[in-house]
């Protein structure tokens, strides 16, 4: 079996079921829809796995299906490639995607838009697989826009809620800003390199033809797209609002896969970013600042999903930090482990929300430990993993990123990373203590209905929990007796300088970040178990700071004032000043003129058949006479 005959089928299955489900949703019962949707993604996962093993034996492959666009020297193929980087992404997307599809059967079971939901979810999986498997920037952009569309559709899935419809719109518009930069980056690449194929671009860079300044321009423009899609500063504002969508969607799209597309893109173009010092610096700095900035907002939020959303932004900031520090493999590593534990956290949060009749405010939870015997331990595993507790997946990937930040010479970013690690541990355990421990603060009515989720939801949770524990061992660092298999697997795509570092320094750095995480957990324990009045006292004492964090630095209000309001005002001016008066005026005047002319000319019409016949005859005679006269 050859790899190139097989791997391009991976995105095909979700595409087929995207077409089939809406066509036959009337005849398929829920079971049929579930089978089609989950089955297609499962087939993708099987094919990804087979392709992965073929890749290990045969090396990367490329498949050109046909020439899509051919205009003078612009030639774009519909072509796919399967190399280690694509393989990792395809496995994560189809694997985690499959688990979330299965979970959705339980979570969305009673929703009237069941078939619509799975259509969107399959369309998303297709677009995401297209994004990660495409072998050129243009096709990647198609997938990039496709996932953006699905994100919009699924955020606004409950479109009858105003907040959901607005959140979808916000996500779409904010992403448009980023996509504009991305498109410019693609055009710059084309005019410089003359081709959009990744292989040609890499050869061009390796050949030393690309000047550093052009690399900086292209790198920064492409990064604008990544900033939009991966919700980095300053375009992160859409992600917290995206939590209006169904929880499995938040897990799949707004945590595990789509939002990490930016990290994938930066890793894919790693030669370009390695060439430009400035572009890498910008990636690292934006990543670092985003990490600590959004973690600080996560500290005080009260909505369970929003806390996880800020955590996602912060973790993607980490990945960007790793990429910007020159260690793209550590960014990809964290992407993979993050997909496991963040999907786990979101899905178990969904299980909590499901149990509490759609309550999302953690102030109205508490003491759920004994009611949710499966959800609690898996949530705890997820929280431990994201906090970077040794032995779990998050620890390995996070430490690799912090190590690379330390080695890149930007020590202050390393310090930011360590502080963020502490904040991450704090807000995760704040969540755990408020939701699962302490007094039961929910209403009696809600309390009466509390139930553990069905098996179809808990089994994916358990599998994800398992992955969150063992996922880190694919990249076991040398200092701990491993060989960092993950990095050597990616080494054919990602070329990194290796920094020699003594094991004792590595142990020291690990120790510092673990201590930071433990301090975070300890403070959370102090605040929410030992001394429940303490947080309120502190909030009163530092009221300004607390309000600033709670109101999310007023960024939404500032954007509203700077961009949204002027746009609305300007549009209204254009509407009333230009459209209504000038353009409509011209249209109305011409209509009136035609009407007046018509009313004069219509006098000729008598309505009598014979008059028309006579005029017709007269005309014929005149024309015939003219001809005869000319002869």
């Amino acid at each position, binding site marked *: 079996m050859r790899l190139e005959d097989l791997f391009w089928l991976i995105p095909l299955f979700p595409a087929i079921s995207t077409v089939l489900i809406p066509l036959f949703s009337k005849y398929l019962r829920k079971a049929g829809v579930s089978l089609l949707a989950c089955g297609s993604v499962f087939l993708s996962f099987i094919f990804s796995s087979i392709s992965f093993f073929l890749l290990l034996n045969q090396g990367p492959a490329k498949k050109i299906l046909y020439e899509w666009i051919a205009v003078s020297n612009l030639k774009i193929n519909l072509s796919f490639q399967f190399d280690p980087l694509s393989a990792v992404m395809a496995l994560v997307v189809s694997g985690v995607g499959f688990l979330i599809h299965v979970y959705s059967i339980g979570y969305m079971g009673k929703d009237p838009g069941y078939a619509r939901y799975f259509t969107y979810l399959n369309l998303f999986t297709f677009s995401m697989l297209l994004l990660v498997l495409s072998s050129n920037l243009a096709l990647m952009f198609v997938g990039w826009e496709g996932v953006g569309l699905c994100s919009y559709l699924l955020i606004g899935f409950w479109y009858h809620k105003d907040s959901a419809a607005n959140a979808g719109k916000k996500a779409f518009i904010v992403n448009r800003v980023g996509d504009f930069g991305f498109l410019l980056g693609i055009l710059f690449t084309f005019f410089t390199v003359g081709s959009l194929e990744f292989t040609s671009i890499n050869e061009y860079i390796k050949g030393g033809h690309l000047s550093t300044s052009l690399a900086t321009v292209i790198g920064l423009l492409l990064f604008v797209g990544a900033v939009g899609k991966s919700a980095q500063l300053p375009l992160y504002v859409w992600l917290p609002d995206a939590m209006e969508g169904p929880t499995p969607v938040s897990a799949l799209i707004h945590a595990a896969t789509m939002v990490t597309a930016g990290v994938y893109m930066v890793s894919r173009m790693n030669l370009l970013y390695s060439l430009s010092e400035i572009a890498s610096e910008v990636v690292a700095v934006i990543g670092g600042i985003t990490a600590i900035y959004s973690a600080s907002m996560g500290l005080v939020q009260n909505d369970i999903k929003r806390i996880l959303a800020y955590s996602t932004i912060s973790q993607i900031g980490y990945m960007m930090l790793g990429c910007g520090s020159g260690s793209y493999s550590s960014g990809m590593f964290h992407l993979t482990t993050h997909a496991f534990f963040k999907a786990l956290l979101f899905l178990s949060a969904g299980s909590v929300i499901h149990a509490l009749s759609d309550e999302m405010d953690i102030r109205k939870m508490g003491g759920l430990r004994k009611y949710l015997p499966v959800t609690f331990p898996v949530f705890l595993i997820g929280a431990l993993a994201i906090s970077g507790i040794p032995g779990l997946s998050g620890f390995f990937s996070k430490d690799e990123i912090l190590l690379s930040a330390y080695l890149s010479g930007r020590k202050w970013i390393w310090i930011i990373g360590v502080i963020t690690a502490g904040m991450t541990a704090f807000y995760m355990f704040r969540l755990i203590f408020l939701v699962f421990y302490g007094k039961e603060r929910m209403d009696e009515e809600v309390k009466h209905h509390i139930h553990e989720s069905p098996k179809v939801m808990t089994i994916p949770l358990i599998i994800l929990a398992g992955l969150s524990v063992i996922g880190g061992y694919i990249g076991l660092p040398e200092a701990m007796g491993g060989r960092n298999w993950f990095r050597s697997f990616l080494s054919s795509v990602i070329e990194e300088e290796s920094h020699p570092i003594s094991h004792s320094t590595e142990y020291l750095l690990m120790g510092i970040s673990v201590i930071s995480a433990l301090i975070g957990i300890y403070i959370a324990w102090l605040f929410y178990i030992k001394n429940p009045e303490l947080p309120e006292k502190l909030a009163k004492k530092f009221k300004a700071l607390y309000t600033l964090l709670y109101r999310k630095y007023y960024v939404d209000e500032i954007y509203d004032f700077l961009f949204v309001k002027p746009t609305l005002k300007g549009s209204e001016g254009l509407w009333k000043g230009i459209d209504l008066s000038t353009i409509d005026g011209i249209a109305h005047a011409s209509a009136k003129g035609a009407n007046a002319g018509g009313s004069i*000319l*219509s*006098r*000729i*019409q*008598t*309505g*009598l*058949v*014979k008059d028309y*016949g*006579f005029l017709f*005859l007269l005309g014929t005679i005149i024309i015939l006479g003219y001809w005869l006269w000319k002869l």
Partner: protein
Amino acid sequence: MIPSIYFISISIFIFIAGLIIFFTKKDLIFVFMSVEIMLNGINLFLLSLSPNLKSQILIIFIITVAAAEAAVGLAIILNLSRIKGDVEVDTIRILKG
């Protein structure tokens, strides 16, 4: 072989006859039939000027289309008589501007 001048004269006669009926009769049915007569007069005129296979084929097509038109026209007249009660040409002035 009969000289073509006979055919030409008879076709012109048919056409003029149709024209006269068109302007003199008051009944819409007659007016309608006169149009058909004129059309066939012209057909005969064409055939008498160039009596070959091509014009025969053309005329077969014209007659087919004319038959279809006649069906539509008769349907209109039928509906008109149902609504109005008669088909007097000089009293139908719906198209007056």
